[in-house]
């Protein structure tokens, strides 16, 4: 990736063209919901996993207050976890980029931790911080976010065009200046990729953490309890909230990314 100034996108990705690109998929999605609704509700097909969408909508409306309260409770955990995990990840990423020996030893560790179902630590964290504490779930979320952010930050800081480095060195730039002018902009795309993944991971972490024990007015507990009662409509109504959180946070990161890096080539005409 070159750090040299790059011209602005020509036939670009506008908001209008993005919306147009979504017409067909949204149409398919809505079509699927309608068909499923008819099949389950009017034709009496046994609901396998997904109850009739219209009934989910009814439950959504009927139980909105408690769903909303649960959502805000869980959202706090997700955002806290995201912030803690990302900050720690960025810091460690910068540290391991600077001292490469450390990086080589930490890398297999990171790989191992990534393959471990971190989720399995949720019960333990619950016991340490308390079942009713939001901190325990936030820590699950934080641990899940940490490694992708750390690895990608380090990779981004190191993935610099050697020619750009030479150019700056020939101008007798200090390490700090090199860091600021070249490494950081180079690392930003990698960081944002990791943050996008991190939002999903944080959401998953918080919700699953709640499965292992949390107050009843949390999204995770709501989902599991009503699933256990086989009251799947209410369960799915909560899941809709969970998905909305995930998508909402993701789009937030995308918006911040566009603000911070309007020049990046991924915003030009290209593939998903």
């Amino acid at each position, binding site marked *: 990736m070159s750090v040299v100034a790059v011209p602005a996108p020509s036939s670009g990705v506008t908001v209008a063209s993005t919306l147009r*690109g*979504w017409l*067909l*998929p949204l*149409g*398919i*999605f809505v079509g699927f919901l309608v068909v499923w609704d008819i099949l389950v509700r009017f034709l009496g097909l046994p609901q*396998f*996993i*997904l109850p009739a969408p219209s009934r989910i909508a009814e439950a959504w409306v009927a139980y909105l207050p408690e769903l909303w309260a649960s959502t805000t409770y869980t959202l706090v955990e997700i955002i806290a976890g995201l912030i803690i995990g990302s900050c720690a990840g960025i810091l460690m990423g910068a540290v391991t980029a600077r001292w490469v020996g450390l990086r*080589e*030893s*930490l890398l*297999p*560790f990171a*790989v*191992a931790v*990534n*393959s*471990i*179902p*971190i*989720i*399995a630590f949720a*019960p*333990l964290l619950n*016991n*340490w911080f308390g079942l009713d504490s939001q901190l325990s779930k936030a820590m699950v979320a934080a641990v899940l976010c940490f490694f992708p952010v750390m690895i990608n930050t380090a*990779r*981004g800081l190191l*993935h610099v065009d050697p020619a750009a480095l030479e150019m700056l060195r020939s101008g007798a730039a200090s390490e700090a200046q090199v860091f600021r002018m070249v490494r950081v902009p180079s690392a930003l*795309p*990698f960081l944002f*990729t990791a943050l*996008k993944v991190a*939002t*999903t991971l944080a*959401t*998953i972490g918080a*919700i*699953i953490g709640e*499965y*292992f*024990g949390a107050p009843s007015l949390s999204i*995770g507990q709501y*989902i*599991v309890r009503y*699933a*256990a009662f*086989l009251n*799947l409509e209410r*369960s799915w109504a909560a*899941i809709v909230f*969970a*998905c909305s959180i*995930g*998508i909402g946070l*993701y789009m937030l990161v995308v918006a911040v990314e566009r603000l911070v890096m309007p020049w990046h080539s991924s915003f030009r005409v290209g*593939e*998903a």
Partner: protein
Amino acid sequence: MSARRRLRPALGFLLIVALILVAWEVAKLLAGDPWRYEDILGGPAFYWDPPLRWKPVNDLNLPHLWTIFGAFWELDAKGETYVSSLVGAAWFTMRESLLGFFMGAGIGLGLAIVLIHVKVLERGLVPLLVASQTVPIIAIAPVVVVGLRAGWFGVAIVATYLTFFPVTIAAIRGMRAADPRAFELMRSYAAGRRTVLRKLRLPASPPYLFTAFKIAATASVVGAIVGEFPAGIRDGLGGALLQAMQYYSFSPQDLWAAIAACAGVGIIAFLLVVAAERLALRNYRQIEDQAT
């Protein structure tokens, strides 16, 4: 890479693990509960009272390493060691993940081939696939398992679902990844779509597929554990975790042992994919890092 260079990260890894273990016991030495051991005759043989007290490193929250180690060899009511019941649970869970993984990989690849050739479907479905990756699908696992009412097979279905999303997207990318001139070349030989698929697209995709496989393998295992747990499937690792949680106040070390078993399964799954990758990609040039 020379043997010594390859050894350094492994040594560094072991060093870090060793440091963690040492720090563990040192913390308990300084601020844990009193260390109290009796000799064979029942008289006090060893007693140490740490100078400080700090709740996070007491015996309930952070058992001694040897206690955890001992937990594996505890006998239960049936006379079976804990480690063997954990291994049984691990194997149970692994089977669910493996089944789900292979089904998901097959569906993912098949779907990708269809999408590449039918443009309308691709424009309609790929954005949905990409968006679905922002949805906490793993979190939905319990609902799916309960709703399907198919026991462990439901868990395998969850693993299938978790696998086929990343595999489809990676397969589409991989099948498009070849140099455009390679496509021109095939056209210059008047090669039909099936020939292009067999001789260019499919062989070009393994590097991308294996990246997805690594993610999918881990996701399958996690999804399996999460799916078992609230649905009350007792035979797998989810059940083992549940049980260990229930007896936490009596023997916290069991939970640690169960967690270690989960970690083991995760690592094994990952290593299997890495080994398969080494084998499958031995003829391919090494591609450099991309921001994946």
